[in-house]
């Protein structure tokens, strides 16, 4: 069975959940190998985590020389590892950075690329077949790579992480990084402030606010906290400067697919629908009964979010006791 490389999604060595999802998928396709590009000193610690989800090998690429540069050096490191291991596939988290690494890797390896997969299964012979949600979630597409080493970027929540003990053998890997890859410098970096709420990509419940909040997100945040949910926003709310862009759901923000999505004061333009249409259950609260969001909902309240949300928050808290 060939090795399937999984690029570890981490924040300063703290492994993020999509890594375990990718390892679970990798196991369907071959022998999972985790690739950790980060502080070499954290390699052993990361290996302990990823071996619980089936990583047989953990390649540790120390990033001391490359972390000041954008994506290109990581693509070179992955290329060299894929060639050295004759990898059967490369799985990469579908983040902004992940997709750019994947794009460069596809050209380097002369291999086909599929982005934003929401499911990956092994076809006969083990080759990956992907499922994607396209055209604002209106179509489902299945696809496969027909040339080279399949490179697939996978969206969060595409698999339930399955624990499975792997060997987790650590192997240090020194990548040869070209000067050409060190041309886009990261001059400064400001980590995003933690909100204390679940990550939008991983949340089971999301409560989003739009133009109808009038700029006051308190009712949205309070309901979110009562439900243990993440907070999201429409582009109208972001463009009005009410909430940072990192909260935006939609075509140019995040695409989410939670168990429950509550849209408050959001009309439901196609660009917003593109980011949330595949949610399992959709609820909307909007003053305008003609708002297109009501075409999507499982349950809708025609009313003012400023009264409905606080009252609902109170009732939810009562029920929780």
């Amino acid at each position, binding site marked *: 069975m060939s090795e399937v490389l999984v690029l570890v999604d981490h924040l300063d060595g703290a492994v993020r959940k999509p890594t375990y999802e990718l390892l679970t998928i990798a196991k369907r396709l071959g022998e999972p190998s985790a690739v950790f590009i980060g502080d070499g000193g954290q390699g052993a610690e990361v290996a302990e985590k990823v071996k619980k989800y089936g990583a047989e090998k953990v390649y540790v690429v120390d990033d001391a020389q490359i972390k000041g540069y954008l994506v290109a050096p990581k693509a070179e490191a992955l290329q060299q590892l894929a060639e050295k291991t004759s990898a059967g596939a490369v799985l990469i988290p579908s983040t902004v950075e992940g997709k750019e690494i994947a*794009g*460069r890797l596809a050209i380097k390896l002369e291999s086909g690329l599929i982005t934003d997969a929401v499911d990956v299964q092994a076809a006969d012979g083990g080759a990956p077949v992907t499922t994607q949600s396209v055209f604002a979630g209106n179509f489902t597409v*299945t696809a496969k790579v027909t040339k080279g080493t399949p490179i697939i970027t996978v969206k969060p929540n595409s698999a339930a992480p399955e624990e499975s003990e792997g060997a987790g053998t650590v192997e240090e890997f020194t990548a040869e990084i070209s000067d050409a890859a060190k041309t886009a410098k990261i*001059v400064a970096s400001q980590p995003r402030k933690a909100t204390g709420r679940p990550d939008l990509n991983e949340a089971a419940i999301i409560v989003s606010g739009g133009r109808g909040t009038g700029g006051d997100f308190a009712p949205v945040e309070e309901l979110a906290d009562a439900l243990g949910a993440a907070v999201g926003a429409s582009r109208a709310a972001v463009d009005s400067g009410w909430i940072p862009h990192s909260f935006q759901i939609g075509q140019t923000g995040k695409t989410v697919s939670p168990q429950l999505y509550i849209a408050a004061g959001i009309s439901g333009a196609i660009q917003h629908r593109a980011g949330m249409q595949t949610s399992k259950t959709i609820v909307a609260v909007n003053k305008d009964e003609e708002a297109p969001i009501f075409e999507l909902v499982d349950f809708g*309240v025609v009313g003012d979010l400023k*009264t409905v949300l606080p009252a609902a928050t109170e009732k939810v808290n009562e029920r929780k006791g």
Partner: protein
Amino acid sequence: MNILVCVKYVPDATADRKFEDDNTVDRVGVDGLLSELDEYAVEQALQLKEKAGEGADDGGVEVTALCVGPEKAVDAVRKALQMGADKGIHVVDDAIAGSDAVATSLVLAKAVEKAGSDSGDGGVDLVICGMASTDGSMSVVPAMLAERLSWPQVTMASVIESQGDQVRIKRDGDTATEVIGATMPLVLSVTDQSGEARYPSFKGIMAAKKKPLDVWSLSDLGVDAGEVGLSVAWSEVEDTTERPPRSAGEIVKDEDGSGAGALTEFLAAKKFI
């Protein structure tokens, strides 16, 4: 300075988008237009031109809109010219139909090289792209193009600053906001946070009719027809299925303050509480 802006012709996102029998996107039977997200790229190119125009010794920025697509895709180039781009290049060739991002980036890279050598004054300095197309929405072509050209990529920019041949951008990443710097020539992609795109003025629409628009084929670029198109794509769509419409949900009116109670009952029944 020569700026090339990549503009894509896409099916209107508000229209009834669909696939052809061969699982490629229907680009002819559905009304098309310049991808909304590429308008931001055109806008930033025009702003760079305007800023350079203000500085006396650094004038002479030329903005060229570059599009790869079928005959009708010339509409995307025209829109860019109406907004204020100086000239257009439309790469059109039947062999390109069905190309994946890998092949598209090859055609774009060759077009950038040809535009550079045709310019006669030091080549292309800056290629500007949108953050994604509104149809395929992979967001990988700018990175692929940078890889092919061996240029730096400064991508997903919400704020762009340039001085001489230096470019600095603000990039809102998944976990951090970063400042990225690089030296031209480079590939820049801009997000919808970079600034509202202008509407073509009546004067702009009239002026666009007289602007030069070159039409190039694959042979003009020295690209073999066998390197592009659906049959040689490195990935293949097996099947497309339309998502069934969501079944109509229950809608209640909060006329007597009952909305919150009904909502809470629904959430409890679905075990979200």
